[in-house]
Protein backbone atom coordinates (compact mmCIF):
# COMPACT_ATOMS: atom_id res chain seq x y z
CA UNK A 1 0.00 0.00 0.00
CA UNK A 2 1.11 3.57 -0.60
CA UNK A 3 1.33 6.51 1.73
CA UNK A 4 -1.52 8.21 -0.10
CA UNK A 5 -4.12 9.73 2.18
CA UNK A 6 -6.81 7.36 0.90
CA UNK A 7 -4.68 4.34 1.82
CA UNK A 8 -4.26 5.19 5.49
CA UNK A 9 -5.44 2.82 8.19
CA UNK A 10 -7.88 3.98 10.85
CA UNK A 11 -5.10 3.91 13.44
CA UNK A 12 -2.73 5.92 11.24
CA UNK A 13 -5.44 8.48 10.49
CA UNK A 14 -5.97 8.88 14.22
CA UNK A 15 -2.25 9.27 14.87
CA UNK A 16 -1.85 11.95 12.22
CA UNK A 17 -4.98 13.82 13.32
CA UNK A 18 -3.57 14.01 16.82
CA UNK A 19 -0.07 15.08 15.84
CA UNK A 20 -1.57 17.69 13.49
CA UNK A 21 0.12 16.35 10.37
CA UNK A 22 -3.35 15.73 8.91
CA UNK A 23 -6.74 17.32 9.36
CA UNK A 24 -10.04 15.55 9.12
CA UNK A 25 -11.20 18.23 6.71
CA UNK A 26 -8.30 17.57 4.33
CA UNK A 27 -8.84 13.82 4.49
CA UNK A 28 -12.59 14.19 3.99
CA UNK A 29 -12.07 16.52 1.04
CA UNK A 30 -9.57 14.09 -0.53
CA UNK A 31 -11.99 11.17 -0.20
CA UNK A 32 -14.90 13.22 -1.55
CA UNK A 33 -12.80 14.08 -4.60
CA UNK A 34 -11.91 10.44 -5.03
CA UNK A 35 -15.57 9.47 -4.82
CA UNK A 36 -16.42 12.13 -7.37
CA UNK A 37 -13.74 10.86 -9.71
CA UNK A 38 -14.37 7.13 -9.42
CA UNK A 39 -17.93 6.46 -8.38
CA UNK A 40 -19.26 6.80 -11.88
CA UNK A 41 -17.47 3.54 -12.48
CA UNK A 42 -18.02 1.77 -9.17
CA UNK A 43 -21.50 2.97 -8.09
CA UNK A 44 -20.72 2.42 -4.43
CA UNK A 45 -22.74 5.43 -3.25
CA UNK A 46 -26.46 6.10 -3.34
CA UNK A 47 -26.00 9.47 -1.68
CA UNK A 48 -22.89 11.50 -0.88
CA UNK A 49 -23.30 13.81 2.11
CA UNK A 50 -20.45 16.14 1.25
CA UNK A 51 -21.51 19.37 2.97
CA UNK A 52 -22.45 17.60 6.17
CA UNK A 53 -19.22 15.59 6.08
CA UNK A 54 -17.02 18.66 5.70
CA UNK A 55 -18.88 20.38 8.53
CA UNK A 56 -18.44 17.34 10.80
CA UNK A 57 -14.77 17.07 9.81
CA UNK A 58 -14.11 20.71 10.69
CA UNK A 59 -15.82 20.19 14.04
CA UNK A 60 -13.64 17.14 14.70
CA UNK A 61 -10.52 19.17 13.92
CA UNK A 62 -11.59 21.88 16.35
CA UNK A 63 -12.43 19.37 19.08
CA UNK A 64 -9.18 17.47 18.71
CA UNK A 65 -7.29 20.75 18.67
CA UNK A 66 -8.92 21.65 21.98
CA UNK A 67 -8.12 18.27 23.48
CA UNK A 68 -11.70 16.99 23.42
CA UNK A 69 -10.84 13.51 22.14
CA UNK A 70 -13.79 11.20 21.43
CA UNK A 71 -11.71 8.12 20.74
CA UNK A 72 -10.26 6.14 17.82
CA UNK A 73 -12.87 7.10 15.21
CA UNK A 74 -12.86 10.82 15.94
CA UNK A 75 -12.49 12.59 12.60
CA UNK A 76 -12.41 9.32 10.65
CA UNK A 77 -14.64 9.16 7.53
CA UNK A 78 -17.02 6.24 6.99
CA UNK A 79 -20.12 5.17 5.07
CA UNK A 80 -23.39 3.42 5.91
CA UNK A 81 -25.23 0.87 3.82
CA UNK A 82 -28.48 2.54 2.87
CA UNK A 83 -30.51 0.42 5.27
CA UNK A 84 -29.22 2.38 8.29
CA UNK A 85 -31.28 5.36 9.36
CA UNK A 86 -29.63 8.74 9.74
CA UNK A 87 -31.88 11.51 11.01
CA UNK A 88 -32.84 13.87 8.21
CA UNK A 89 -31.58 11.63 5.40
CA UNK A 90 -33.52 9.21 3.22
CA UNK A 91 -33.12 5.50 3.87
CA UNK A 92 -33.96 4.18 0.43
CA UNK A 93 -33.00 0.52 0.93
CA UNK A 94 -32.18 0.75 -2.78
CA UNK A 95 -35.88 0.62 -3.62
CA UNK A 96 -38.42 2.67 -5.50
CA UNK A 97 -40.77 1.97 -2.59
CA UNK A 98 -38.62 4.02 -0.21
CA UNK A 99 -37.56 7.02 -2.27
CA UNK A 100 -39.66 9.39 -0.16
CA UNK A 101 -38.73 7.97 3.22
CA UNK A 102 -36.71 10.31 5.44
CA UNK A 103 -35.49 8.98 8.77
CA UNK A 104 -36.64 10.84 11.88
CA UNK A 105 -33.92 9.43 14.12
CA UNK A 106 -30.48 7.95 13.88
CA UNK A 107 -30.09 4.20 13.93
CA UNK A 108 -28.23 3.15 17.06
CA UNK A 109 -25.10 2.50 14.98
CA UNK A 110 -25.26 5.98 13.41
CA UNK A 111 -25.86 7.49 16.83
CA UNK A 112 -22.81 5.79 18.32
CA UNK A 113 -20.62 6.76 15.38
CA UNK A 114 -21.82 10.35 15.51
CA UNK A 115 -21.12 10.47 19.27
CA UNK A 116 -17.63 9.07 18.57
CA UNK A 117 -16.95 11.92 16.15
CA UNK A 118 -16.79 9.78 13.00
CA UNK A 119 -17.53 11.60 9.74
CA UNK A 120 -20.33 10.23 7.55
CA UNK A 121 -19.49 10.59 3.84
CA UNK A 122 -22.65 9.02 2.52
CA UNK A 123 -25.11 6.17 2.14
CA UNK A 124 -23.91 3.12 0.26
CA UNK A 125 -25.44 0.96 -2.43
CA UNK A 126 -27.37 -2.12 -1.36
CA UNK A 127 -29.33 -4.79 -3.13
CA UNK A 128 -32.99 -3.82 -2.85
CA UNK A 129 -34.01 -4.39 0.79
CA UNK A 130 -30.80 -6.49 1.04
CA UNK A 131 -32.26 -9.09 -1.34
CA UNK A 132 -31.54 -10.01 -4.93
CA UNK A 133 -28.97 -8.31 -7.08
CA UNK A 134 -27.29 -7.29 -9.19
CA UNK A 135 -30.39 -5.56 -10.52
CA UNK A 136 -30.80 -3.05 -13.32
CA UNK A 137 -34.45 -2.23 -12.71
CA UNK A 138 -33.97 -0.21 -9.54
CA UNK A 139 -33.62 3.56 -9.01
CA UNK A 140 -29.88 3.10 -8.45
CA UNK A 141 -27.35 1.12 -10.47
CA UNK A 142 -25.70 -1.91 -8.90
CA UNK A 143 -22.24 -1.49 -7.41
CA UNK A 144 -19.36 -2.83 -9.49
CA UNK A 145 -16.21 -4.54 -8.39
CA UNK A 146 -13.23 -2.15 -8.22
CA UNK A 147 -10.90 -4.99 -9.24
CA UNK A 148 -12.78 -5.22 -12.53
CA UNK A 149 -15.98 -3.21 -13.05
CA UNK A 150 -17.33 -5.88 -15.39
CA UNK A 151 -17.56 -8.15 -12.38
CA UNK A 152 -19.98 -8.42 -9.48
CA UNK A 153 -19.28 -7.25 -5.95
CA UNK A 154 -21.61 -9.77 -4.35
CA UNK A 155 -23.99 -8.33 -1.80
CA UNK A 156 -26.09 -7.18 -0.36
CA UNK A 157 -23.58 -4.77 1.23
CA UNK A 158 -22.29 -4.23 -2.28
CA UNK A 159 -21.51 -0.53 -1.98
CA UNK A 160 -19.71 -1.08 1.33
CA UNK A 161 -17.38 -3.66 -0.21
CA UNK A 162 -16.81 -1.61 -3.35
CA UNK A 163 -16.16 1.66 -1.51
CA UNK A 164 -13.57 0.06 0.78
CA UNK A 165 -11.79 -1.72 -2.07
CA UNK A 166 -11.76 1.48 -4.16
CA UNK A 167 -10.30 3.30 -1.14
CA UNK A 168 -13.10 5.80 -0.97
CA UNK A 169 -13.55 5.10 2.76
CA UNK A 170 -11.42 3.62 5.55
CA UNK A 171 -14.39 1.67 6.93
CA UNK A 172 -18.09 1.17 6.32
CA UNK A 173 -21.08 -0.52 7.84
CA UNK A 174 -22.98 -3.39 6.27
CA UNK A 175 -25.58 -5.92 7.28
CA UNK A 176 -25.50 -9.69 6.90
CA UNK A 177 -28.51 -12.04 6.81
CA UNK A 178 -27.09 -14.77 4.58
CA UNK A 179 -23.54 -13.59 3.91
CA UNK A 180 -24.14 -9.95 2.97
CA UNK A 181 -21.04 -8.63 4.75
CA UNK A 182 -18.70 -11.57 4.29
CA UNK A 183 -19.44 -12.25 0.62
CA UNK A 184 -18.82 -8.74 -0.76
CA UNK A 185 -15.75 -8.61 1.48
CA UNK A 186 -14.50 -11.82 -0.14
CA UNK A 187 -15.21 -10.75 -3.70
CA UNK A 188 -13.93 -7.19 -3.26
CA UNK A 189 -10.83 -8.10 -1.24
CA UNK A 190 -11.74 -6.44 2.05
CA UNK A 191 -12.13 -7.52 5.65
CA UNK A 192 -15.75 -7.93 6.74
CA UNK A 193 -16.92 -8.96 10.20
CA UNK A 194 -20.35 -10.36 10.95
CA UNK A 195 -20.36 -10.24 14.75
CA UNK A 196 -22.42 -12.46 17.02
CA UNK A 197 -26.18 -12.06 16.67
CA UNK A 198 -27.19 -9.21 18.96
CA UNK A 199 -23.67 -7.85 19.50
CA UNK A 200 -24.46 -4.68 17.50
CA UNK A 201 -27.85 -3.04 17.76
CA UNK A 202 -30.09 -3.42 14.71
CA UNK A 203 -32.40 -0.62 15.81
CA UNK A 204 -33.01 1.76 12.95
CA UNK A 205 -31.70 -0.70 10.35
CA UNK A 206 -34.34 -1.85 7.88
CA UNK A 207 -34.87 -5.58 8.50
CA UNK A 208 -34.51 -8.39 6.03
CA UNK A 209 -35.17 -11.29 8.43
CA UNK A 210 -35.34 -10.40 12.10
CA UNK A 211 -33.70 -13.47 13.58
CA UNK A 212 -30.91 -13.71 10.99
CA UNK A 213 -29.96 -10.02 10.59
CA UNK A 214 -26.53 -8.93 11.81
CA UNK A 215 -24.85 -5.51 11.49
CA UNK A 216 -21.07 -5.28 11.13
CA UNK A 217 -18.11 -3.33 9.80
CA UNK A 218 -16.01 -3.70 6.64
CA UNK A 219 -12.51 -2.27 6.28
CA UNK A 220 -9.22 -2.84 4.51
CA UNK A 221 -7.50 -4.26 7.58
CA UNK A 222 -8.53 -6.40 10.53
CA UNK A 223 -7.45 -3.65 12.90
CA UNK A 224 -9.74 -1.17 11.15
CA UNK A 225 -12.82 -3.29 11.84
CA UNK A 226 -11.64 -3.99 15.41
CA UNK A 227 -11.43 -0.26 16.10
CA UNK A 228 -14.90 0.24 14.60
CA UNK A 229 -16.26 -2.59 16.74
CA UNK A 230 -15.01 -0.85 19.86
CA UNK A 231 -17.39 2.01 19.12
CA UNK A 232 -20.45 0.29 17.67
CA UNK A 233 -20.74 -2.83 19.85
CA UNK A 234 -22.79 -2.87 23.01
CA UNK A 235 -26.18 -3.50 24.51
CA UNK A 236 -29.11 -1.40 23.32
CA UNK A 237 -32.07 -1.78 25.69
CA UNK A 238 -34.36 -0.40 23.01
CA UNK A 239 -33.54 -3.24 20.60
CA UNK A 240 -35.13 -6.52 21.72
CA UNK A 241 -32.57 -8.49 19.69
CA UNK A 242 -29.61 -6.73 21.33
CA UNK A 243 -27.49 -8.95 23.59
CA UNK A 244 -26.87 -7.76 27.13
CA UNK A 245 -23.23 -8.78 27.12
CA UNK A 246 -20.16 -6.88 28.30
CA UNK A 247 -18.13 -5.25 25.52
CA UNK A 248 -14.63 -6.73 25.43
CA UNK A 249 -11.42 -5.11 24.19
CA UNK A 250 -11.45 -5.97 20.48
CA UNK A 251 -8.03 -4.48 19.74
CA UNK A 252 -5.53 -5.50 22.39
CA UNK A 253 -5.36 -9.15 21.29
CA UNK A 254 -4.26 -8.26 17.77
CA UNK A 255 -0.69 -9.32 17.16
CA UNK A 256 -0.81 -12.09 19.77
CA UNK A 257 -0.49 -14.74 17.09
CA UNK A 258 -1.90 -18.26 17.12
CA UNK A 259 0.70 -20.26 19.01
CA UNK A 260 -1.07 -22.95 20.98
CA UNK A 261 -4.52 -22.17 19.60
CA UNK A 262 -6.68 -25.03 18.37
CA UNK A 263 -8.41 -24.33 15.09
CA UNK A 264 -11.15 -26.45 13.55
CA UNK A 265 -10.96 -26.94 9.80
CA UNK A 266 -14.07 -28.35 8.10
CA UNK A 267 -12.08 -29.39 5.04
CA UNK A 268 -14.71 -31.61 3.42
CA UNK A 269 -17.44 -29.06 4.07
CA UNK A 270 -15.34 -26.45 2.23
CA UNK A 271 -14.35 -28.63 -0.69
CA UNK A 272 -17.96 -29.76 -1.19
CA UNK A 273 -19.20 -26.25 -2.04
CA UNK A 274 -21.19 -26.34 -5.26
CA UNK A 275 -19.44 -24.24 -7.88
CA UNK A 276 -16.33 -23.85 -5.73
CA UNK A 277 -13.16 -22.98 -7.61
CA UNK A 278 -10.16 -25.22 -6.85
CA UNK A 279 -7.87 -22.18 -6.86
CA UNK A 280 -9.89 -20.55 -4.08
CA UNK A 281 -10.02 -23.80 -2.10
CA UNK A 282 -6.23 -23.95 -2.54
CA UNK A 283 -5.93 -20.56 -0.85
CA UNK A 284 -7.82 -21.92 2.18
CA UNK A 285 -5.46 -24.92 2.27
CA UNK A 286 -2.46 -22.59 2.04
CA UNK A 287 -3.71 -20.56 4.99
CA UNK A 288 -4.30 -23.74 7.01
CA UNK A 289 -0.68 -24.75 6.39
CA UNK A 290 0.55 -21.27 7.33
CA UNK A 291 -1.37 -21.34 10.60
CA UNK A 292 0.23 -24.68 11.48
CA UNK A 293 3.66 -23.19 10.76
CA UNK A 294 2.76 -20.27 12.99
CA UNK A 295 2.12 -22.60 15.91
CA UNK A 296 -1.59 -23.40 15.76
CA UNK A 297 -2.97 -26.89 16.05
CA UNK A 298 -5.35 -27.45 13.17
CA UNK A 299 -7.66 -30.44 13.05
CA UNK A 300 -10.14 -31.46 10.40
CA UNK A 301 -13.72 -31.55 11.66
CA UNK A 302 -17.01 -32.70 10.19
CA UNK A 303 -19.95 -30.32 9.89
CA UNK A 304 -23.52 -31.12 8.89
CA UNK A 305 -24.11 -30.92 5.15
CA UNK A 306 -24.34 -27.34 3.91
CA UNK A 307 -27.66 -28.10 2.24
CA UNK A 308 -29.32 -28.47 5.64
CA UNK A 309 -28.07 -25.04 6.70
CA UNK A 310 -29.46 -23.59 3.46
CA UNK A 311 -32.83 -25.28 3.95
CA UNK A 312 -33.05 -24.07 7.54
CA UNK A 313 -31.81 -20.55 6.81
CA UNK A 314 -33.81 -19.89 3.65
CA UNK A 315 -37.10 -21.06 5.13
CA UNK A 316 -36.62 -18.74 8.12
CA UNK A 317 -35.44 -15.92 5.87
CA UNK A 318 -38.31 -16.41 3.43
CA UNK A 319 -41.01 -16.40 6.10
CA UNK A 320 -39.60 -13.46 8.07
CA UNK A 321 -38.88 -11.39 4.96
CA UNK A 322 -42.37 -11.89 3.59
CA UNK A 323 -43.76 -10.76 6.93
CA UNK A 324 -41.84 -7.50 6.52
CA UNK A 325 -43.02 -6.85 2.96
CA UNK A 326 -46.39 -8.56 2.70
CA UNK A 327 -48.45 -5.39 2.59
CA UNK A 328 -46.48 -3.92 -0.30
CA UNK A 329 -46.36 -7.32 -1.99
CA UNK A 330 -50.14 -7.25 -2.05
CA UNK A 331 -50.63 -3.65 -3.12
CA UNK A 332 -47.49 -2.58 -5.03
CA UNK A 333 -45.82 -5.70 -6.43
CA UNK A 334 -44.72 -3.88 -9.60
CA UNK A 335 -42.75 -1.34 -7.59
CA UNK A 336 -40.30 -3.96 -6.37
CA UNK A 337 -37.37 -4.88 -8.54
CA UNK A 338 -37.80 -8.23 -10.21
CA UNK A 339 -35.21 -10.17 -8.19
CA UNK A 340 -36.36 -8.88 -4.82
CA UNK A 341 -40.00 -9.49 -5.64
CA UNK A 342 -39.45 -12.97 -7.03
CA UNK A 343 -37.56 -14.13 -3.95
CA UNK A 344 -39.65 -12.46 -1.29
CA UNK A 345 -43.05 -13.42 -2.63
CA UNK A 346 -42.13 -17.07 -2.14
CA UNK A 347 -42.34 -16.50 1.59
CA UNK A 348 -46.10 -16.58 1.15
CA UNK A 349 -45.87 -20.29 0.40
CA UNK A 350 -44.05 -21.21 3.62
CA UNK A 351 -46.45 -22.66 6.16
CA UNK A 352 -46.42 -21.93 9.86
CA UNK A 353 -45.42 -25.52 10.58
CA UNK A 354 -42.47 -25.30 8.16
CA UNK A 355 -41.28 -22.12 9.84
CA UNK A 356 -41.53 -23.68 13.30
CA UNK A 357 -39.74 -26.77 12.05
CA UNK A 358 -36.94 -24.59 10.69
CA UNK A 359 -36.53 -22.83 14.04
CA UNK A 360 -36.36 -26.22 15.77
CA UNK A 361 -33.79 -27.43 13.27
CA UNK A 362 -31.84 -24.24 13.87
CA UNK A 363 -31.67 -24.99 17.57
CA UNK A 364 -30.56 -28.53 16.82
CA UNK A 365 -27.83 -27.33 14.44
CA UNK A 366 -26.61 -24.78 17.00
CA UNK A 367 -26.39 -27.49 19.64
CA UNK A 368 -24.48 -29.83 17.35
CA UNK A 369 -22.11 -27.10 16.14
CA UNK A 370 -21.52 -25.69 19.62
CA UNK A 371 -19.98 -29.02 20.67
CA UNK A 372 -16.91 -27.91 18.72
CA UNK A 373 -16.13 -25.13 21.14
CA UNK A 374 -15.23 -27.45 23.94
CA UNK A 375 -12.17 -28.37 21.93
CA UNK A 376 -11.42 -25.48 19.57
CA UNK A 377 -10.76 -21.75 19.85
CA UNK A 378 -11.71 -20.81 16.28
CA UNK A 379 -12.62 -22.24 12.89
CA UNK A 380 -11.04 -21.73 9.46
CA UNK A 381 -13.56 -21.80 6.63
CA UNK A 382 -14.84 -19.61 3.77
CA UNK A 383 -17.89 -17.64 2.73
CA UNK A 384 -17.57 -17.69 -1.04
CA UNK A 385 -15.39 -20.32 -2.67
CA UNK A 386 -15.19 -18.55 -5.99
CA UNK A 387 -14.03 -15.22 -7.31
CA UNK A 388 -16.37 -12.49 -8.51
CA UNK A 389 -18.43 -13.59 -11.52
CA UNK A 390 -19.17 -11.27 -14.40
CA UNK A 391 -22.25 -9.14 -13.81
CA UNK A 392 -24.35 -10.95 -16.39
CA UNK A 393 -23.53 -14.32 -14.86
CA UNK A 394 -24.03 -13.28 -11.24
CA UNK A 395 -27.72 -12.53 -11.69
CA UNK A 396 -28.51 -16.16 -12.27
CA UNK A 397 -26.25 -17.70 -9.62
CA UNK A 398 -26.92 -15.85 -6.38
CA UNK A 399 -25.90 -18.66 -4.02
CA UNK A 400 -23.09 -20.04 -6.14
CA UNK A 401 -20.19 -21.38 -4.10
CA UNK A 402 -21.45 -19.69 -0.94
CA UNK A 403 -21.29 -21.28 2.49
CA UNK A 404 -22.10 -18.11 4.35
CA UNK A 405 -25.57 -18.77 5.76
CA UNK A 406 -24.08 -21.35 8.13
CA UNK A 407 -23.11 -18.59 10.55
CA UNK A 408 -26.38 -16.70 10.26
CA UNK A 409 -28.11 -19.88 11.35
CA UNK A 410 -25.75 -20.36 14.32
CA UNK A 411 -25.38 -16.65 15.06
CA UNK A 412 -21.62 -17.05 15.55
CA UNK A 413 -19.12 -14.32 14.71
CA UNK A 414 -17.45 -14.86 11.34
CA UNK A 415 -15.01 -12.64 9.50
CA UNK A 416 -13.77 -12.63 5.92
CA UNK A 417 -10.06 -11.91 5.48
CA UNK A 418 -8.66 -11.45 1.95
CA UNK A 419 -5.69 -13.74 1.32
CA UNK A 420 -4.79 -13.63 -2.36
CA UNK A 421 -5.80 -13.29 -5.97
CA UNK A 422 -7.10 -15.76 -8.53
CA UNK A 423 -7.02 -14.48 -12.08
CA UNK A 424 -6.66 -10.93 -10.82
CA UNK A 425 -9.68 -11.13 -8.52
CA UNK A 426 -9.61 -11.46 -4.72
CA UNK A 427 -10.19 -14.61 -2.71
CA UNK A 428 -10.80 -14.73 1.03
CA UNK A 429 -11.10 -17.09 3.95
CA UNK A 430 -13.41 -16.87 6.96
CA UNK A 431 -12.43 -17.13 10.60
CA UNK A 432 -15.35 -18.04 12.88
CA UNK A 433 -15.62 -18.49 16.62
CA UNK A 434 -18.12 -19.21 19.38
CA UNK A 435 -20.78 -16.71 20.38
CA UNK A 436 -19.36 -13.40 21.59
CA UNK A 437 -15.76 -14.47 20.90
CA UNK A 438 -15.05 -11.65 18.44
CA UNK A 439 -11.68 -10.89 20.09
CA UNK A 440 -10.48 -14.41 19.24
CA UNK A 441 -11.86 -14.16 15.69
CA UNK A 442 -10.06 -10.84 15.24
CA UNK A 443 -6.83 -12.22 16.74
CA UNK A 444 -6.75 -15.23 14.42
CA UNK A 445 -7.90 -13.09 11.49
CA UNK A 446 -5.10 -10.61 12.03
CA UNK A 447 -2.62 -13.47 12.02
CA UNK A 448 -4.09 -14.76 8.77
CA UNK A 449 -3.82 -11.26 7.34
CA UNK A 450 -0.09 -11.16 8.14
CA UNK A 451 0.62 -14.73 7.01
CA UNK A 452 -1.28 -14.41 3.75
CA UNK A 453 0.90 -11.71 2.25
CA UNK A 454 -2.21 -9.70 1.40
CA UNK A 455 -0.56 -6.43 2.43
CA UNK A 456 1.83 -6.90 -0.51
CA UNK A 457 -1.01 -7.19 -3.01
CA UNK A 458 -1.45 -4.03 -5.03
CA UNK A 459 -5.00 -2.77 -4.65
CA UNK A 460 -6.91 -1.88 -7.81
CA UNK A 461 -6.20 1.44 -9.44
CA UNK A 462 -9.33 2.66 -11.13
CA UNK A 463 -9.04 5.25 -13.81
CA UNK A 464 -11.51 8.06 -13.52
CA UNK A 465 -13.62 8.27 -16.60
CA UNK A 466 -16.79 7.19 -18.24
CA UNK A 467 -19.39 5.40 -16.27
CA UNK A 468 -19.94 1.71 -16.72
CA UNK A 469 -23.37 0.24 -17.21
CA UNK A 470 -26.68 1.63 -18.22
CA UNK A 471 -27.87 5.12 -17.55
CA UNK A 472 -25.15 5.83 -15.03
CA UNK A 473 -24.15 9.38 -14.20
CA UNK A 474 -20.46 10.19 -14.28
CA UNK A 475 -20.42 10.94 -10.58
CA UNK A 476 -22.91 11.51 -7.82
CA UNK A 477 -23.98 15.05 -7.20
CA UNK A 478 -22.93 16.29 -3.84
CA UNK A 479 -25.73 15.89 -1.33
CA UNK A 480 -27.98 14.51 -3.99
CA UNK A 481 -29.27 10.99 -4.47
CA UNK A 482 -28.23 9.19 -7.60
CA UNK A 483 -31.54 8.50 -9.26
CA UNK A 484 -30.94 6.96 -12.63
CA UNK A 485 -33.76 4.70 -13.65
CA UNK A 486 -37.07 5.32 -11.99
CA UNK A 487 -39.10 6.01 -15.08
CA UNK A 488 -39.34 2.57 -16.59
CA UNK A 489 -39.01 -0.66 -14.73
CA UNK A 490 -37.30 -3.11 -17.01
CA UNK A 491 -38.45 -6.63 -17.63
CA UNK A 492 -37.47 -9.43 -15.32
CA UNK A 493 -33.93 -10.67 -15.80
Amino acid sequence: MTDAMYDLSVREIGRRLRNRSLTSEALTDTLLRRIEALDGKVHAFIRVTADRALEDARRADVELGEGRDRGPLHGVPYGLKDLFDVAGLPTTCGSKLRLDHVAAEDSEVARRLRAAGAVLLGKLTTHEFAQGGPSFDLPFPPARNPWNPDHFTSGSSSGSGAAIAARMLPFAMGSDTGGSIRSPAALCGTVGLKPTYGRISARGVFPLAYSLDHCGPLGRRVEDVALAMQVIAGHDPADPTSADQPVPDFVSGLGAGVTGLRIAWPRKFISSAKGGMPEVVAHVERIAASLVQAGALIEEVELPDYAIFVACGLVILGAESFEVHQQNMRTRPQDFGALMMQRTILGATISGSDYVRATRLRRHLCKEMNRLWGRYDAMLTASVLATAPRMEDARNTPWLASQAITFNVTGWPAMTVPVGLVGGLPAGVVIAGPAFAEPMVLRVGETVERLSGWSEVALPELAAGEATGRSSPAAPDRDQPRLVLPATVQASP
Partner: protein
Amino acid sequence: MTVLDDPDLAAELDTAMRIAGVTIPPERRPAVLAGYADLKGHLALLRAWSGEESPAGAFNPADERE
Protein backbone atom coordinates in the same frame (compact mmCIF):
# COMPACT_ATOMS: atom_id res chain seq x y z
CA MET B 1 -40.86 -31.64 -18.38
CA THR B 2 -39.57 -28.41 -16.82
CA VAL B 3 -41.06 -26.85 -13.72
CA LEU B 4 -42.77 -24.34 -15.97
CA ASP B 5 -44.76 -27.15 -17.57
CA ASP B 6 -45.79 -28.80 -14.31
CA PRO B 7 -49.49 -28.06 -13.83
CA ASP B 8 -49.56 -29.41 -10.28
CA LEU B 9 -46.73 -27.17 -9.19
CA ALA B 10 -48.35 -24.16 -10.81
CA ALA B 11 -51.68 -24.93 -9.16
CA GLU B 12 -50.02 -25.27 -5.78
CA LEU B 13 -48.31 -21.93 -6.17
CA ASP B 14 -51.52 -20.26 -7.30
CA THR B 15 -53.37 -21.61 -4.27
CA ALA B 16 -50.70 -20.36 -1.87
CA MET B 17 -50.72 -16.95 -3.50
CA ARG B 18 -54.50 -16.73 -3.39
CA ILE B 19 -54.50 -17.55 0.34
CA ALA B 20 -51.81 -14.92 0.94
CA GLY B 21 -53.74 -12.36 -1.12
CA VAL B 22 -50.82 -11.79 -3.46
CA THR B 23 -50.95 -11.50 -7.24
CA ILE B 24 -47.86 -12.40 -9.20
CA PRO B 25 -47.28 -9.98 -12.07
CA PRO B 26 -47.59 -12.12 -15.24
CA GLU B 27 -44.14 -11.29 -16.57
CA ARG B 28 -42.58 -12.47 -13.32
CA ARG B 29 -44.50 -15.72 -13.06
CA PRO B 30 -41.92 -18.01 -14.75
CA ALA B 31 -39.16 -16.88 -12.41
CA VAL B 32 -41.39 -17.18 -9.34
CA LEU B 33 -42.44 -20.67 -10.40
CA ALA B 34 -38.80 -21.70 -10.85
CA GLY B 35 -37.99 -20.27 -7.41
CA TYR B 36 -40.93 -22.15 -5.94
CA ALA B 37 -39.55 -25.41 -7.30
CA ASP B 38 -36.22 -24.66 -5.59
CA LEU B 39 -37.95 -23.80 -2.34
CA LYS B 40 -39.86 -27.10 -2.46
CA GLY B 41 -36.49 -28.84 -2.54
CA HIS B 42 -35.40 -27.02 0.61
CA LEU B 43 -38.70 -27.80 2.31
CA ALA B 44 -38.36 -31.47 1.44
CA LEU B 45 -34.97 -31.53 3.15
CA LEU B 46 -36.37 -29.71 6.15
CA ARG B 47 -39.28 -32.11 6.46
CA ALA B 48 -36.98 -35.11 6.15
CA TRP B 49 -35.21 -34.10 9.35
CA SER B 50 -36.31 -36.42 12.14
CA GLY B 51 -36.95 -33.58 14.57
CA GLU B 52 -35.06 -35.41 17.26
CA GLU B 53 -35.09 -33.90 20.74
CA SER B 54 -35.21 -30.31 19.63
CA PRO B 55 -37.88 -28.18 21.23
CA ALA B 56 -39.19 -25.06 19.65
CA GLY B 57 -38.16 -21.98 21.54
CA ALA B 58 -36.27 -18.77 21.57
CA PHE B 59 -32.99 -18.71 19.67
CA ASN B 60 -29.89 -17.81 21.64
CA PRO B 61 -26.47 -18.51 20.15
CA ALA B 62 -24.92 -18.74 23.60
CA ASP B 63 -27.27 -21.56 24.61
CA GLU B 64 -26.30 -25.20 24.66
CA ARG B 65 -22.60 -24.43 24.75
CA GLU B 66 -20.75 -27.56 25.78
